[in-house]
């Protein structure tokens, strides 16, 4: 089954799953209230968005300059920078570091870029033990599942399901209390933190001016990942660049507001190097892996270059009527929701993933929600246009050619209308069934009745 058929099949099931809908609506309802309150606290959220968009525009449109500045600054403090054109290269770089260190146990804080390159699979394949330490990621890892949402990985699960999972996998006592469940995970992961040889993190921002990465989190797991193991590895896409340290004064509160409706996320931490002379803790070695993996192809598409502004806040997922109905896993991609539908065709092939750009009501809620003003719903349209231009389907070609003939010949047009009026009563008998010639449309949509009289006829009679 190809990606599109799988998507349609899963989407149909999930859209009818009322239990799923209830869980997601409840979680996102609370999010919306918190987010709106935070947005209102800004002197001008709209002007903040414009400034954020312009700052990211500057970063992406001078990316070569900023990448050189970033790496020069961060290397000067003893950090080893690696460049990876592909996912396979990034996996190999990280595996080589792990082998060199003869590491046995690895802890990892949340990183969507690591999901993108399927890092955990590669590490496990090499016989290594890697444990996710963000609570939500830990839960989905125990379930052998991909994260459901880029910010809330375990949003689709109830406390009962998590309690069952912990009983089965960790041997804990059943409980209905989210706090107790969190403490079970805290105890299990504390041991891992203290004994891990390597800590792997992602990054939210990379600061060119000072050569630092910035990590945003609520739990303190990334702080511990960057404090305890002797070796630290950070994997980030080349688009994470921000020009100045002071830009974070804008981006940190905007990420928190758009992402979770918080004024600021619990821990926002900037790292500028491994343990420096005179410092008492932190990793002895720090490796930063910069990943391209088709980002430069998206950069070359000037029309959609702003999709690289994305700060992975998840705001567009949270407001998307499609996401809310079909859920995160249905997309079958690392990045789901509107941003996933826009960038996946660039990252993994337009023809294989063009269906995601069609699975949209084009309502524009995503574009309005985006804190860095990515023109998301227009990009969905552009993907549709590009896909059709690159490889038009026979059905569409025939359809549109016939329509051109019909629309250019008034007599043919008049005949078609008469024909529709005459045959529609027959079509009504089979409407929505596989016998209906318009089945692909009518199985999920209404087909309005043709008017009993055309405007032209009515006008003529009136005279």
């Amino acid at each position, binding site marked *: 089954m190809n990606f599109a058929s799988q998507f349609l099949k899963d989407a149909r099931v999930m859209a009818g799953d009322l239990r799923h809908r209830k869980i997601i609506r409840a979680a996102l309802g609370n999010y919306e209230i918190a987010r709106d309150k935070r947005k209102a606290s800004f002197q001008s959220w709209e002007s903040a968005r414009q400034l954020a968009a312009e700052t990211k525009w500057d970063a992406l449109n001078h990316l070569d300059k900023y990448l050189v500045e970033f790496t020069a600054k961060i290397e000067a403090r003893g950090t080893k920078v690696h460049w990876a054109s592909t996912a396979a290269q990034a996996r190999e770089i990280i595996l080589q570091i792990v082998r060199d260190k003869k590491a046995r146990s690895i802890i990892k804080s949340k990183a969507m870029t690591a999901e993108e390159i399927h890092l955990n699979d590669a590490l496990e394949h090499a016989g290594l033990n890697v444990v996710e330490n963000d609570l939500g990621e830990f839960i989905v890892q125990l379930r052998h599942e991909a994260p459901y949402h880029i910010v809330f990985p375990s949003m689709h699960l109830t406390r009962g399901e998590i309690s069952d999972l912990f009983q089965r996998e960790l041997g804990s006592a059943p409980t209905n209390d*989210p706090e107790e469940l969190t403490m079970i995970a805290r105890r299990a992961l504390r041991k891992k933190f203290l004994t891990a040889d390597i800590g792997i993190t992602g990054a939210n921002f990379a600061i060119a001016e000072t050569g630092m990465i910035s990590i945003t989190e609520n739990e303190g797991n990334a702080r511990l990942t960057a404090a305890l193991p002797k070796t630290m590895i950070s994997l980030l896409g080349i688009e994470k660049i921000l020009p100045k340290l002071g830009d974070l*004064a804008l981006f940190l509160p905007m990420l928190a507001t758009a992402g979770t409706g918080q004024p600021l996320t619990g821990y926002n931490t900037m790292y500028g190097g491994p343990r420096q002379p005179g410092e008492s803790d932190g990793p002895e070695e720090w490796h930063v892996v910069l990943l391209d993996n088709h980002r430069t192809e998206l950069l070359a598409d000037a029309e959609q270059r702003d999709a690289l502004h994305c700060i992975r806040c998840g705001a567009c997922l949270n407001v998307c009527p499609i996401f809310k109905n079909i859920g995160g896993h249905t997309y079958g991609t690392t990045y789901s929701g509107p941003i996933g539908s826009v960038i996946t065709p660039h990252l993994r092939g337009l023809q294989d993933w063009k269906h995601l750009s069609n699975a949209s009501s084009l309502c524009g809620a995503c574009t309005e929600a985006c804190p860095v003003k990515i023109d998301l719903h227009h990009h969905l349209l552009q993907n549709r246009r590009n896909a059709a231009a690159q490889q038009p389907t026979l059905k569409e070609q025939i359809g549109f050619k016939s329509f051109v003939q019909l629309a250019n010949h008034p007599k043919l047009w008049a005949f078609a209308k008469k024909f529709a009026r005459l045959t529609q009563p027959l079509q009504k008998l089979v409407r929505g069934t596989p016998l209906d010639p318009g089945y692909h449309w009518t199985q999920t949509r209404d087909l309005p009745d043709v008017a009993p009289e055309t405007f032209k006829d009515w006008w003529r009679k009136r005279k």
Partner: protein
Amino acid sequence: MNEREKILARVREALKTPAPLPGSHGETHLPVFEKTVSTPRQWLPKVGETFEEQLALFAKNAAELKADFQLLASRDELKTALAKISSTEDWKHVASHRGELTDSISGSLNLPICFTDKNYDVHELEICDVGISECDALVAQTGSVLVTNRSAGGRALSVLPPHHVVLARREQLVADLPAAFELLQQKYAANYPSMISFITGPSRTGDIERILVLGAHGPKKLTILCF
């Protein structure tokens, strides 16, 4: 050509085509980028101008974050406040670092102290009931505590023990995030610490049914003693 050069070459090639400016919906291509004159401070949540307003805002934000903010009349009250928490929570082991404020206080607790600003054993830190540290600033706008590994005893002290107590002076309060970054630049630009962290409330998670739980991996409690 190595991967670095290959990636940079692809970036340069890609950037030969100018991108439309944000918000133009791709309708007009404006290749010349004019840096905006606006600054974050103009748009971020408003902060009062007087010290009293800023202090009140910090206290309000800290309360919302479920941090315990205690405003003390004098430096002497630090000792009393700390002794009170120590006896309530029955501290057995304390972790801290050398510093002007911490030195004058932690000795009075009469408890073994694990110092984390020189080489230390992480298992010794892990059994501590509390980590007591200084900070670089308090941020009124967000209720955050700004620490660095240089000012606050390394990377782990403020996040490994179940309770983090911050000792601060009133004059360390800054109005907003831009001011906090300006302070960092003034203080450290020549040689930044390898870790800088904005701590906004105790460790938290909402990963189970989006219900707030404190103490996910870091401290369950954050106490800020300010005189």
